C-alpha cells in the first residue's frame, strides 16, 4: 500500500468514527509510516487536499491535518509552511477561522525567513480572507495591501487583479460603495487584459453586488447575468452557482418570490450534482429565508433544520455563526423594546423571536421548553427583564 492510500484509509476511518483524528495523527507519526514519507508525497497529499476542499471539506481537513503532521517529519521548512498553509485553507472551508489564522501566521513566518516573496503574497492574501470573514476589515485591508504590493513587485498580474477585487470587497462591506466600485473596475480591467475569464466573471458579480447594496436591483441583475454567461462559457461551476444565487437574491429583494424560488432550486440542484455540500447547505438555508419572507414558517423551519443537519454533518461551524448572528439580531430587538418591557415584565424572563415578544415566564427553563415544544429548536432570545448583565467567571485554562 503506498503512502497516499494509507493516508486516505486513515481519513476514511476518521470519517466512519472508527478512530479519532488524534489517534490517526499518532499513527502518522509512528516510525513505520515516517519512513515512507518523502517530500514528493507531501506535495501530492497537499494537492489532493486542495482538490477535495470544495466537494468534501471535512475529508480535506482531515487529510490536511495528517499531511501537516507528516510534514514535520521531513526537516524542510518550506514543506512545513506549505502544509500549514493548506491546512489553514481547509480550516477556512469549515469556518474554523482562529485555527486558520494561527496556521497562516506560522506559514507566513517561515516563508518570510526564507524570503519566498510569491508565497508571502499568497499567504498574506489568505490571512486577509480570514480577517475579512471575521469582520476585522482594517486588518484584512493591511494583508490584502501587502499581497497586492508583492503581486505588483513580482509582476503577477492575475494576483494583482485578485487582490484589488478583495480590497473592493472590504470597501463594499464598509459601505464605501464608490471606492469598492473603483477597485472592482480596476480588477475587471486587469482580468480582461490577461484573458482571465473566470476573474472577469467574479468582478462582474462583485459589481452586481454593489448595485444590489445600492438598491439598484435591475442593474445588479444585468451584471449577474453577464457573470453567469461567462461562468457557463468557461465551465466555472462555482461561478455558475454564485451567479444564480445572486440573481435569486436580487429577485428576493424585488419581492419576486416565485422567480427567486426557481433560481434557488436550480442552485440546490446544481450544488447537489456537484457534490458541493457546503454550497447545498447554504442554498437550503436561503430557501428557508425565502419561505420565512413568504410567511410560510413551517416550510422555513423545515429548511433551516435541514441546512443545520448538513452543516453539522460536514463539520462546518458556519451554522453556529449564522445562529449567533440571529441571536444578536433578536437582542437588538430586545434592547429596543426594553423600556416597554420593564414597565410590564420586570424580573420576568421574556422570549423574542423575529423581533417580536413570543413568551413571558418567571422560569427561564419552562419558557424555553414551551417554545421548543411549539416551534422546534428555533433561535429564540431569552432574557430576564431588568437584570444587569453579569460577567461569568470561568478561570480554568481552556480553549474557546
Amino acid at each position, binding site marked *: 500500500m503506498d503512502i497516499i492510500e494509507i493516508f486516505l484509509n486513515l481519513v476514511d476511518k476518521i470519517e466512519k468514527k472508527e478512530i479519532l483524528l488524534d489517534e490517526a495523527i499518532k499513527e502518522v507519526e509512528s516510525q513505520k509510516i515516517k519512513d515512507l514519507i518523502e517530500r514528493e508525497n507531501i506535495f501530492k497529499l497537499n494537492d489532493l487536499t486542495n482538490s477535495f476542499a470544495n466537494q468534501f471539506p471535512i475529508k480535506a481537513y482531515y487529510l490536511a491535518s495528517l499531511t501537516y503532521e507528516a510534514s514535520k517529519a521531513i526537516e524542510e521548512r518550506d514543506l512545513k509552511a506549505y502544509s500549514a498553509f493548506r491546512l489553514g485553507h481547509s480550516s477556512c472551508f469549515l469556518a474554523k477561522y482562529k485555527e486558520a489564522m494561527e496556521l497562516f501566521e506560522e506559514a507566513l513566518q517561515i516563508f518570510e525567513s526564507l524570503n519566498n516573496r510569491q508565497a508571502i503574497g499568497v499567504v498574506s492574501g489568505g490571512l486577509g480572507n480570514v480577517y475579512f470573514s471575521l469582520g476585522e476589515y482594517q486588518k484584512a485591508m493591511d494583508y490584502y495591501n501587502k499581497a497586492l504590493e508583492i503581486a505588483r513587485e513580482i509582476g503577477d498580474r492575475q494576483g494583482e487583479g485578485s487582490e484589488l477585487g478583495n480590497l473592493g470587497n472590504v470597501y463594499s462591506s464598509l459601505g464605501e460603495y464608490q471606492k469598492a466600485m473603483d477597485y472592482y473596475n480596476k480588477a475587471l480591467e486587469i482580468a480582461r487584459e490577461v484573458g482571465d475569464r473566470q476573474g472577469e466573471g467574479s468582478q462582474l458579480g462583485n459589481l452586481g453586488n454593489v448595485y444590489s447594496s445600492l438598491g439598484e436591483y435591475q442593474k445588479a441583475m444585468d451584471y449577474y447575468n453577464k457573470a453567469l454567461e461567462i461562468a457557463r462559457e468557461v465551465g466555472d461551476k462555482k461561478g455558475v452557482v454564485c451567479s444564480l444565487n445572486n440573481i435569486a437574491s436580487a429577485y428576493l429583494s424585488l419581492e419576486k418570490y416565485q422567480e427567486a424560488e426557481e433560481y434557488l432550486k436550480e442552485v440546490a440542484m446544481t450544488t447537489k450534482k456537484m457534490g458541493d455540500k457546503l454550497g447545498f447547505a447554504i442554498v437550503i438555508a436561503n430557501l428557508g429565508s425565502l419561505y420565512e419572507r413568504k410567511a410560510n414558517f413551517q416550510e422555513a423551519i423545515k429548511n433551516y433544520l435541514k441546512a443545520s443537519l448538513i452543516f*453539522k454533518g460536514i463539520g462546518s461551524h458556519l451554522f453556529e455563526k449564522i445562529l449567533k448572528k440571529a441571536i444578536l439580531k433578536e437582542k437588538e430587538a430586545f434592547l429596543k423594546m426594553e423600556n416597554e418591557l420593564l414597565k410590564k415584565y420586570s424580573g420576568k424572563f421574556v422570549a423574542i423571536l423575529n423581533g417580536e415578544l413570543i413568551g413571558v415566564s418567571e422560569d*427561564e*427553563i419552562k419558557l*424555553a421548553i414551551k417554545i421548543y415544544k411549539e416551534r422546534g429548536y428555533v433561535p429564540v432570545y*431569552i432574557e430576564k427583564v431588568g437584570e444587569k448583565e453579569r460577567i461569568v467567571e*470561568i478561570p480554568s485554562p481552556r480553549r*474557546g
Partner: protein
Amino acid sequence: MEYLYDNEFQPPALVLNIDVSDLLQERRIEKVSCKIDTGADMTVISENVVASLKLTPIKIIPVRDYYGKIIEQELYLAKLLLLNCEFNVEIITTAEKIGFIGRDILNQWVILLDSPRKRFNMTKKAWKLWNLLIVKR
C-alpha cells in the same frame, strides 16, 4: 457515592462522567467527561457535544477567562444527568474535549475530598430538620 480521582490527569483530577441532553430529551450524549471545577461560575460542556445535540443558543454572554480576558460566548440550555439527578441548566461551551462542572451544580452537593487516597465522595445536600421538642408539663 464514592469516586476515584482520574489518574489520566497529572496531578490526578476529580472527573465525573455525566449524560447531557437537549431540554426536550430528543437527543442524548452519554458519559461526557467533566472536571469538577469550584472556580467556574457555570458548567462548561465540549462544543462537539453541544453541536451533536443540535442545541441553539438563547443569548450571548460575557465570560472572563483564565487570562482575565472577557470574551463573548453563546449561552445554551441543556439537561444534565449526574449521580441519578437531573439538572436543567445554562451552559457555555469549550473547544476542549473535557467539560467543567461549575458551582451552579456543585453548590447543591456535599463533596468530601480524600486526596491522599485519591477518592472523593458526593452526596446530595442534606436538609437538616428542626427537632420537634415536646415539653412535658
